[in-house]
């Protein structure tokens, strides 16, 4: 009964999505106010029905309804409740339902937080989102219905993949999907702007906070995924350049470019068509990721069970959505104005150059990800493209981008002076150079790659200091604190996000440079030394989990002969699937992680144990969190909370930049001020 209710809600949601995707758009074109007014209630109705559908699926999972095929295949009655709930999105079908549910959540958010926008605009935006929703709900109903029954019902479910039985499963996919789906808002705004022909600074201002929020979710989603892989896969890697990981990284890179390009479009009215293209691309890449994960064209650790009919459906959907939007782009973009003038040396140019680097990096990752497929389709043989390729390509492309990241915030809009920048930044450069040369010595061994990575990181940090100092000097009277408090949140948000990049680079550099690992046979009482710590194995004993049995090792950690803690890695065997899992124990620290994993049992209670010392590894994820906080801070900036003038502001909004009355202030119409 409950699954049928869910199925029925899904069908009703489809009908509402169809309405949402057609009437408001037509209404906006014809000036039919009642059709325009339909958009908001229909969106909210669709949300209600999708919530019911999702609730029904979750209910079936939590209550072990093994007469539902999806539940029978991906859950088990022994599975702890939180994982039974998370199993709702553990399968292809369920994750699609989560996808559309989130899409409707974003649509509701747009319908609620867009009171100050012109109704036609909102109608078009919601209409476009409705069309996307139609595609996905149809996809579910036609090829992958999560409510399909299994007759006769299974007596017991075949269990959720043990790799997914982890708190990471509860939060990582929702976060990631919030990011993917969030880019649909930027996409819808871009399409709405193309349809209406109104691409102005106001459009950029409206879609900017949405894009930033989506970017924040995606950042957190990817970070959680990486962290999860680190502690769950059992050998301490955190990024594998797997096709599915790349599929999440591509929209992130393009989304990052978009966030920056939107800033220019909003503030200076420039790069409009480029920004629109990025908005289309970011979401298109999210969709492409969906295709890659679910169609089986690429082999990946994370792929869903695949089925060619699904692949054909999504490909058709991709062609319709992306093809038509690119066609619309080709038709409308040539008519878009160019915006404000700027010099070759200016913040605009630097942002554009950074955009270029990000997009080229994204293009290269896409090329590497799809190249095996390309070669195979041309019958040129099969190859693999893995980490060595991506690292060789990605690092050289990102190096100039990081360098520009330090330069950009100090450059003026419109027209900057190279000599002045050099003057201001020479100390930053010297300091970062000196630190980069000396720091590796503190770590014990000088390595060129470490020094190089640190140079980039400290360059970013030093330029942030220079920027803030400069800003304060030009912020009028008052103590340092009042002057600090005078700066806008969006200013700090930028620096916080950039600082996050620096922290991330430090983490990556140091863990790659100084990580140590040992694979040892540990008898009871034997020890191994690593990174100034002594690991002593005191034996392993059987433990029983809710749905698994395990051997749990006891490993004492000693520093200077004093015990600081006991680590308990496990080797689990899950009851339902019989799958073995390595559950490492990690001692997380500010400057290092100790990571211990059980290998194979030996005679006399001895075990093969893998021990890692990973300096600064947590900075990788901490850096990502800082980036995400930066994004949140930007969205909380006052100007997004104010009621915004809906008239298009073509040459609007000069950021109070560097105070010293830049030559361009005369352009500012005073459209905004903090």
């Amino acid at each position: 009964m409950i699954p049928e209710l869910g199925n029925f809600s899904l069908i009703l949601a489809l009908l509402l999505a169809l309405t949402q995707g057609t009437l408001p758009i037509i209404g906006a074109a014809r000036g039919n106010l009642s059709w325009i007014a339909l958009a908001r209630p229909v969106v909210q109705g669709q949300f209600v029905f999708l919530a019911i559908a999702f609730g029904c699926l979750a209910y079936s999972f939590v209550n072990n309804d093994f007469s539902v095929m999806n539940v029978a295949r991906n859950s088990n009655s022994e599975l702890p409740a939180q994982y039974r709930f998370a199993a709702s999105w553990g399968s292809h079908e369920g994750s699609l339902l989560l996808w559309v549910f989130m899409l409707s959540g974003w649509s509701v958010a747009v319908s609620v937080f867009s009171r100050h926008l012109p109704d036609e605009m909102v109608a078009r935006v919601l209409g476009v989102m409705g069309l996307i929703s139609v595609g996905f709900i149809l996809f579910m109903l036609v090829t992958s219905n999560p409510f399909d029954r299994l007759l006769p019902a299974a007596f017991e479910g075949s269990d959720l993949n043990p790799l997914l039985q982890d708190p990471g499963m509860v939060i990582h996919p929702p976060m990631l999907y919030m990011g993917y789906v969030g880019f649909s808002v930027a996409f819808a705004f871009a399409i709405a702007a193309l349809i209406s022909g109104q691409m102005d600074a106001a459009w950029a201002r409206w879609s900017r906070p949405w894009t930033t929020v989506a970017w924040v979710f995606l950042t957190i989603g990817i970070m959680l995924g990486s962290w999860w892989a680190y502690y769950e896969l059992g050998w301490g890697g955190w990024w594998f350049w797997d096709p599915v990981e790349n599929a999440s990284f591509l929209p992130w890179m393009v989304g990052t470019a978009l966030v920056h390009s939107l800033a220019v479009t909003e503030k200076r009215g420039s790069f409009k068509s480029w920004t629109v293209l990025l908005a289309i691309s970011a979401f298109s890449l999210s969709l492409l990721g969906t295709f890659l994960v679910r169609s089986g064209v690429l082999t990946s650790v994370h792929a869903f069970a695949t089925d060619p009919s699904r692949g054909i459906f999504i490909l058709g959907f991709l062609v319709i959505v992306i093809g038509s939007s690119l066609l619309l782009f080709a038709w409308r973009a040539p008519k878009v104005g160019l915006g404000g003038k700027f010099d070759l040396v200016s913040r605009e140019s630097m942002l554009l150059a950074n955009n270029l680097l990000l997009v080229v990096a994204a293009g290269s990752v896409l090329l590497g990800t799809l190249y095996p497929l390309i070669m195979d389709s041309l019958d040129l043989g099969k190859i693999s493209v893995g980490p060595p390729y991506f690292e060789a390509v990605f690092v050289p492309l990102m190096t100039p981008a990081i360098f520009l990241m330090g330069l950009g915030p100090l450059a003026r809009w419109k027209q900057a002076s190279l000599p002045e920048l050099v003057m201001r930044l020479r100390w930053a450069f010297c300091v970062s150079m000196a630190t980069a040369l000396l720091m590796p010595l503190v770590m014990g061994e000088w390595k060129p790659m470490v020094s190089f990575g640190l140079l980039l990181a400290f360059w970013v940090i030093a330029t942030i200091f220079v920027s803030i100092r400069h800003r304060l000097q030009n912020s009028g009277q008052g103590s340092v604190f009042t002057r600090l408090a005078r700066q806008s949140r969006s200013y700090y948000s930028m620096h916080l996000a950039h600082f996050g990049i620096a922290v991330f680079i430090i983490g990556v550099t140091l863990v790659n440079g100084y990580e140590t690992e040992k694979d040892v046979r540990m008898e009871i009482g034997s020890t191994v030394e690593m990174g100034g710590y002594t690991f002593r194995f005191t034996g392993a004993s059987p433990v029983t989990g809710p749905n698994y049995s395990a051997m749990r090792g006891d490993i004492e950690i000693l520093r200077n002969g004093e015990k600081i803690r006991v680590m308990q890695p496990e080797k689990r065997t899950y009851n339902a699937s019989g799958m073995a899992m390595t559950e490492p124990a990690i001692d997380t620290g500010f400057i290092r992680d100790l990571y211990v994993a059980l290998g194979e049992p030996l005679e006399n209670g001895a075990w093969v144990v893998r021990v890692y010392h990973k300096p600064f590894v947590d900075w990788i994820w901490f850096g990502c969190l800082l980036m995400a906080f930066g994004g949140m801070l930007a969205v909380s900036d006052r100007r997004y909370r104010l009621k915004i003038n809906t008239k298009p502001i073509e040459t609007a909004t000069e950021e109070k930049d560097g105070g010293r009355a830049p030559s361009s202030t005369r352009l500012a119409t005073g459209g905004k001020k903090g």
Partner: protein
Amino acid sequence: MRFLLPLAAFIVLVGFLAVGLGLKPREIPSPLVGKPAPVFQSPRLHEPDQILSSKDNLGKVWLLNVWASWCVSCREEHPLLVELSKSGIVPIYGLNYKDKPELALQWLGQYGDPYTVSVVDPEGRIGIDYGVYGVPETYVIDKNGVIRHKQIGPVTIESLEKKILPLIKELQG
């Protein structure tokens, strides 16, 4: 014009993706096809004290079938192999891959033994030489000891009729 470029790039991409849907990314063609089959000398499964050398097969067309009692999809192709061996068209040699002899013998007793001779490869070393990465796999080897075809995964009626049998006929001819 330049605004059409993204669309053009997308169309190319879709072309590749569409072709990609029909491909089998998990099947990796063997570079050994067209090359001399690696020589092995290995104990027979039934008479462990006797060694079979692959050189003994020079001058005839033969099949080398990699199998194991733990391999589930071997059971799928097995009836076909039994039938093929009864027809006497081509001798089938078995490579018992990473298996325990007693289990292997029991398995053959249960499902029938299509092999002229089965040799054992307990540590998978011959398997590495032949580039075996999954079981079952079947190689067609010609009179000069050159590998002419590799079937990855179970032999099916379709693959037998369309590829393997015609090839054998041609090679024997």
